[in-house]
């Protein structure tokens, strides 16, 4: 029961993160307010995602210099880069924030005072996130399929 709850939560959290990554790419669709608040919400989602995957992180970090398969090494590298890029994108996003951070700190920010260098870096990191998300999804595809099968099978069983 508890295991099922955990699987369900992890699955829906991952789906939400995936949709958020796509939504965050298009500021014109969401508008700046939703973009920035969703970006801040992603911090909590990423933290939860990492905590749910803690056993994998701990095991693979301990075995970093031990004998591993190429798949395990590439998976670790992708996840490490993914975390790094997401952190960088959130940090640069906070630096160029015009709505959410000023609302939290109570400071007025003029759009003309925006640091264009950080805005550019934020855009570049955002594009890299999408690519890394795709690779992360590709390498964990089997898990996602089995989790989806499990979650929807239970859903169908409970609805009958």
């Amino acid at each position, binding site marked *: 029961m508890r295991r099922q709850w955990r699987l369900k939560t992890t699955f829906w959290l991952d789906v939400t993160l*995936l949709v958020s*990554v*796509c*939504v965050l*790419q*298009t*500021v*014109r*669709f*969401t*508008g*700046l*307010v*939703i*973009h920035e608040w969703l970006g801040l919400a992603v911090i909590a989602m990423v*933290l939860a995602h*990492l*905590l749910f995957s*803690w056993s994998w992180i701990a095991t693979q970090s301990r075995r970093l210099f031990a004998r591993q*398969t*190429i*798949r395990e090494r*590439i998976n670790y590298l992708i996840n490490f880069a993914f*975390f*790094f890029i997401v*952190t*960088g994108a959130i*940090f*640069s996003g906070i630096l160029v924030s*015009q*709505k959410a951070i000023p609302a939290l700190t109570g400071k007025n920010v003029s*759009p*003309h005072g*925006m640091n*264009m*260098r*950080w*805005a*550019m*870096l934020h855009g570049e990191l955002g594009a890299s996130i*999408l*690519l890394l*998300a*795709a*690779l992360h*999804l*590709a*390498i964990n*595809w089997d898990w996602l399929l089995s989790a989806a099968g499990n979650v929807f099978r239970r859903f169908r069983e409970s609805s009958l």
Partner: protein
Amino acid sequence: MKLARVLPRVVILLVVAAAFVGLTAVYGNSTNPVLPDAVWQAEHQHEPSAPNIGYFSEFVGWGIWLAVCCVVGRMLFRLRLNPVPRGEGQPILLDLRPSRRDSLNSSPSRAGPTPPIG
């Protein structure tokens, strides 16, 4: 109990994230990229605050792009990371012939009941 287990993990993740932020800050402050033209800058300075449903197709486009990258990555990983198992294409060995150790165990000097097969 549970909080005591989760809290150190959160601290570790935050420390790693802080290190990444430091590295990003160093990189961001050290590089001097050529900024795009004034039109791009003006666009970024005046992004709309409210959502615009008319740009939903842009979101779909990013979704398709992610799916394409995922499929390419999947093909790449399947090809490069899942090598053909050694046993594939080889005849299945039933291992019915007794090994050297088995034949020693069942030698006349240590005669005993033969173990059942299977």
